[in-house]
C-alpha cells in the first residue's frame, strides 16, 4: 500500500477501512508514531492515550471483522481538545488547577465519538480555560505552529489545529468561544467550523463563557469537517441550550459544493484596514473563485460589529468569572495551603489555590468579569454589552436578508511570533475581531485556508458565516472554494508546509522519547 496513512483525510481513511485495505490499529499506530516523531517539537498534545486508542482501534477492527454495521468514521482516530471531559482520561483545560483531574464522566461530544467507534488519540493543548489566541497561556507550555516552530498555532485551540496540521491526527475536536476553532485553523492552514450555538452539545465542555462556547470540528478538508460535524451534532437532552432539530445536511452540502446563484456578502467592517496585505489579497482571490463558481457578491454593512470586541470582552469575563468559581480546592483539582497561615480556613485555602492554580490571563479575566457584574457597574458594563450583543444579532439578521452567507478574512494576520503580544492583552484580543461577532449572535462560521500570504509565506484563512441553523451553507461555499483553490495550488496547501520529521530527529534524540513531554503530569511551563 502506498498511501501515507498520516496524510490521508478522514474520508479517505474511512474508505480504506471499509474496503479492508487498512485497519484502525494500523492507522492508529501510524498516527501515534507520527506523534512520537514530531510532538516534541509541536507539543500539540497534553496527554497521549496510546493504549486506550489502540484498544478502541482493536475493538472496532474486531467488530468490522464480525461484519457489524459500523459508523462511516468508525476506526478513524481523533484528538480531543483538553477542555472536554473524558472519562478515565486526564482533563486539565491547560490549567494547573485541574492538574491530574480525571473526570468520572464523558462529555456528550466524546460519548458520540466513542459510540461512532473513533479511537481517541489524546487530549490537545490549549490556552488555559480557552482564554487566548496563541496557546501561550497554557500552563503546560505553548504549542508550536507546524509551519514555523517559532510562531503561534493560534488559540485557544492551537493544539487541535496543530495536531491536524502536523498530520498527527486527521480530525480533532476544538471549541470556539470567540474564534478558538477558526483562528487556529486560519494560521495553520487547516479547516475549522464553529457550528450554530446549540448545534453541538456543550454537556461536558468545561465552560469558559456558556452563552458563547461551541464545540466543532478541526480538520484538513471541508468534507472531513462535515463528516465530523454530523457525528457530534444534534440534540442532547443534557444541554438545555441544545437545538432540538436534526443536524443540517452538512455532508450533502460539502459533497455538492454548489454555490451557483448564492449571494456572498462581504462585510464592510471586516475587511481593509487592520488586515495584513497578504491576508487581504488571498481573501480577494477567494471571493473571485466563488464568483467564478457562479456566486454573486454583495456588500453588506454591520455597523455594530465595531463594538463587538468590547461587548465580547465584557460578556466573556462576566460569565467566566462565575463559571470558574467552582475551581475552589474543595471537591476536585488542586488544593494549595496558604504559606505562613496556621490552620487556614476554607476561604483562605480557596483564595491561595486560585492564586496559585490560575495563570495571569485567567485571573485578569475573572477580576474583569467580577467587576462588570458587580453592583453599581452591572448596567454600565455587562448590561450595555448585552444590548450591543442584540444590535450585533440584528445586524446579522439584516445582512442575511440580502446575502446567503457572509465572508471575511478569518484573522487579521498570519501567525505571529511567540511573545509578540503576550504582554499586551488588547493586541492579543484583536486577533478575534472577525470571529467574535458570530459567537455573540450564535451563528455558525467556518475557516478554511485561502493560501499563503506573500509577505511571510504563512497560511491565511477565509471565513464564511451563515444564518443560525444553516450550517450546511458553510459547507457548500467552503467545499466550492476548496475545490478551486486545490486546483490552483495543484494539491493541499499543507503539502507546502515544512517537513517536521527532519527537524524533530535531532530534538527527539536529545530528549529520549517524545511522549514524555506530551505527558501532562510531566509537562513544564514554557
Amino acid at each position: 500500500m502506498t498511501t501515507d496513512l498520516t496524510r490521508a483525510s478522514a474520508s479517505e481513511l474511512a474508505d480504506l477501512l471499509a474496503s479492508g485495505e487498512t485497519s484502525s490499529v494500523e492507522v492508529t499506530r501510524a498516527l501515534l508514531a507520527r506523534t512520537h516523531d514530531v510532538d516534541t517539537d509541536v507539543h500539540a498534545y497534553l496527554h497521549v492515550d496510546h493504549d486506550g486508542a489502540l484498544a478502541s482501534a482493536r475493538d472496532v477492527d474486531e467488530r468490522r471483522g464480525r461484519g457489524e454495521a459500523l459508523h462511516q468514521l468508525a476506526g478513524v482516530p481523533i484528538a480531543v481538545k483538553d477542555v472536554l471531559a473524558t472519562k478515565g482520561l486526564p482533563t486539565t483545560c491547560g490549567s494547573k488547577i485541574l492538574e491530574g483531574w480525571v473526570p468520572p464522566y464523558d462529555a456528550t461530544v466524546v460519548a458520540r465519538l466513542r459510540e461512532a467507534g473513533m479511537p481517541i488519540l489524546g487530549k490537545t493543548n490549549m490556552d488555559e480555560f480557552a482564554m487566548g489566541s496563541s496557546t501561550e497561556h497554557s500552563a503546560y507550555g505553548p504549542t508550536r505552529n507546524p509551519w514555523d516552530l517559532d510562531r503561534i498555532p493560534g488559540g485557544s485551540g492551537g493544539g487541535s489545529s496543530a495536531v491536524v496540521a502536523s498530520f498527527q491526527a486527521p480530525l480533532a475536536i476544538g471549541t470556539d468561544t470567540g474564534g478558538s476553532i477558526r483562528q487556529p485553523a486560519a494560521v495553520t492552514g487547516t479547516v475549522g467550523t464553529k457550528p450554530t450555538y446549540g448545534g453541538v452539545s456543550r454537556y461536558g465542555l468545561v465552560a469558559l463563557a456558556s452563552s458563547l462556547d461551541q464545540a466543532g470540528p478541526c480538520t484538513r478538508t471541508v468534507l472531513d469537517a462535515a463528516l465530523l460535524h454530523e457525528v457530534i451534532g444534534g440534540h442532547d437532552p443534557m444541554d438545555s441550550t441544545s437545538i432540538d432539530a436534526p443536524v443540517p445536511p452538512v455532508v450533502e452540502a460539502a459533497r455538492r459544493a454548489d454555490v451557483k446563484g448564492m449571494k456572498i456578502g462581504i462585510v464592510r467592517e471586516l475587511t481593509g484596514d487592520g488586515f495584513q496585505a497578504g491576508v487581504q489579497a488571498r481573501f480577494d482571490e477567494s471571493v473571485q473563485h466563488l464568483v467564478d463558481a457562479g456566486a454573486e457578491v454583495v456588500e453588506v454593512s454591520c455597523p455594530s460589529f465595531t463594538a463587538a470586541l468590547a461587548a465580547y470582552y465584557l460578556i466573556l469575563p462576566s460569565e467566566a468569572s462565575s463559571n470558574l468559581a467552582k475551581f475552589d480546592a474543595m471537591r476536585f483539582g488542586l488544593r494549595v495551603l496558604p504559606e505562613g497561615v496556621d490552620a487556614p480556613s476554607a476561604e483562605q485555602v480557596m483564595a491561595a489555590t486560585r492564586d496559585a492554580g490560575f495563570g495571569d490571563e485567567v485571573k485578569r479575566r475573572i477580576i474583569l468579569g467580577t467587576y462588570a457584574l458587580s453592583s453599581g457597574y452591572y448596567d454600565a458594563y455587562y448590561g450595555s454589552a448585552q444590548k450591543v450583543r442584540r444590535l450585533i444579532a440584528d445586524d446579522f439578521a439584516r445582512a442575511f436578508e440580502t446575502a446567503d452567507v457572509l465572508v471575511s478574512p478569518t484573522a487579521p494576520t498570519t501567525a505571529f511570533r511567540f511573545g509578540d503580544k503576550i504582554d499586551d492583552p488588547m493586541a492579543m484580543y484583536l486577533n478575534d475581531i472577525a470571529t467574535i461577532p458570530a459567537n455573540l449572535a450564535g451563528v455558525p462560521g467556518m475557516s478554511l485556508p485561502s493560501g499563503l500570504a506573500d509577505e511571510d509565506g504563512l497560511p491565511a484563512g477565509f471565513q464564511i458565516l451563515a444564518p443560525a441553523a444553516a450550517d450546511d451553507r458553510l459547507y457548500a461555499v467552503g467545499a466550492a472554494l476548496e475545490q478551486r483553490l486545490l486546483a490552483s495550488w495543484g494539491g493541499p496547501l499543507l503539502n507546502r508546509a515544512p517537513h517536521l520529521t527532519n527537524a524533530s530527529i535531532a530534538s527527539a534524540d536529545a530528549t529520549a522519547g517524545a511522549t514524555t513531554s506530551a505527558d501532562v503530569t510531566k509537562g513544564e511551563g514554557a
Partner: protein
Amino acid sequence: MSSIDTEATISYEEVLESFDPVMGLEVHVELGTNTKMFCGCATEFGAEPNTQVCPVCLGLPGALPVVNEKAVESAIRIGLALNCEIAQWCRFARKNYFYPDMPKNFQTSQYDEPIAFEGYLDVDLDDGSTYRVEIERAHMEEDTGKSLHVGGSTGRIHGATHSLVDYNRAGIPLIEIVTKPLRGAGERAPEIARAYVATLRDLLKALDVSDVKMEQGSMRCDVNLSLMPKGSTTLGTRTETKNVNSLRSVERAVRYEMCRHGAILQAGGSILQETRHWHEDTGVTTSGRPKSDADDYRYFPEPDLVPVAPPQERVEELRATLPEPPAQRRKRLQSDWGFSDLEMRDVLNAGLVDLIGSTVEAGATPAGARKWWSGEIARRANTDGAVDVATYAVERGITPAHVVELEGLVKGGRLNDSMARQVWEGVLDGEGTPTAVADARGLELVQDDGALEAAVDTVIAANPEVAQKVRDGKVQAAGALIGQVMKEMKGQADAGKAREIILAKLTG
C-alpha cells in the same frame, strides 16, 4: 465607643409602648419531587452520604443543568395558591458567592424575574380575625449540601478544625416564598408570624408539593425584623434571623428580636444589619455574619438554562388542580357538620378533620364521628405516645367503617350508649368489629317488651312513694324509677323505652 449591650432585652410591653414592629418572612420549602432541580439524582432523605450526586449537582467541570418539569409545575401551583401572578416569561439567575457546601460557588436561583409574584395569604388568628399577608414573590432555586463540623466541642462551626461535606441535599428543588414587609401587626406580630407559617404549611401540604417537615428542614423560615418608633414611617434597620425551624420558634424568635431591638434603640443605640442565629434550646438569637456591601452577589441571567415561559393554558390547567384552600375548607366543613367554634377548634387541634371527613363520607353522623374519634381513642393515642389519632387508628386497623357500624348498632336499637362505649373499647382492644365485639360480650338491648313491662311493674310496686309523685305530675321523678328498671334489667334495656312504659302506666 458605644457601651450599649446589643444582646440585652427589654420587656415585650416596653417594646410595644414605643415601637411598631415590621416583619418580613422568607420561607424555603423543599419540594417533594422525585429528582433534584437540575439533574436526575434522587432526593431521598437520610441516604448514605454522597450517594445521590452526579456531575451536575456536584458542580463538576463541564456539567450542565436541565430544569425539572415537576418543580416548575409545583412552583406555579404554589404561586397560584398564594394568589400570585405567574410570570409569562422569566429566567433563572446565578447568585454568586463562595461557600464550601455550594458546589458551583453560585446558587442557581431567580433574581428580578420570579416565577410568581404579587400575591397574598389570609391568615386566621386565634381571636377569629383574619390578617392578610402580602406575598412579594415565590421563586425557584436549589438547596446546598450539608456540612458536619469536626473537631469542635459541640459539632458547631466555631472551634471546628475541618468540615465534612455531603452533597446529597445539593440541588434539591427549593421554592423561596417572600412576604412584603408586614406592618401594623403590633403586639400580634409573633402570633401572626406563627400563624402565617402554619397556614402556609397547611397550604403546601394540601397542594401535595412538599412534606413540609420543619424538623427535617424541608421547610425553613428566616425572620426579618425591624422596629419603627411609634408614629414614624421610616423603616428601621433589620436583622435576619436564619433557620427558625418550628412554629413555636417562629413566634419566639420574633418576640425575642423585638425585645432585643427595643433594648438597643431605647438605649440610644443603632441596630447592626446582620444575620442572627436562633437557638431553640436557650430561646435567644446570637450574632452571625454582618450584612454589608461585601454581599455583592453579582446576579446575572443563567446562560446554561433557557427562559421559562409557561403558556397561559398550562397555567389554567394547573389552576384547576388546586385543592380547596385549607382555611376555606375548614369553614365549609364546620358549617356542614354543624360544629360549634369550640368543637371545630378541638377537632383541628387533634388533627381529626380528615378522619371525621372520611367517616362522615362513609355514612356516620358528624356528631357521631367527632364523638367516637375524639374520646377514648384520643386518650389511648396520647397515652401510647402516638403522633396523632389517625396514625394510631391506622396502626391498629381501626377504620371509619367501624364507627359507622357502631353508630348503626346504636341507631338500630341493639346497643345503648353505655353498651356502645363498651363495644368501642373492645374494638380498640383489637377484639374485632363492633358487631363481633357486641356478640362476643353478649351485649344487646332486651327487645322483649313483656320482660321490660314486668320489670317496670316490679319497680313501681317496690317504690310506691316515687310512683305516687309521678302520678301527681312530677314527671322528673320517673328518672329514679328508670334507674331501678335498668338495674333490674342488668343494663340491657333501652332507657327511653323504659321511660315510655313507666309514664304510660302511671300517667296514661
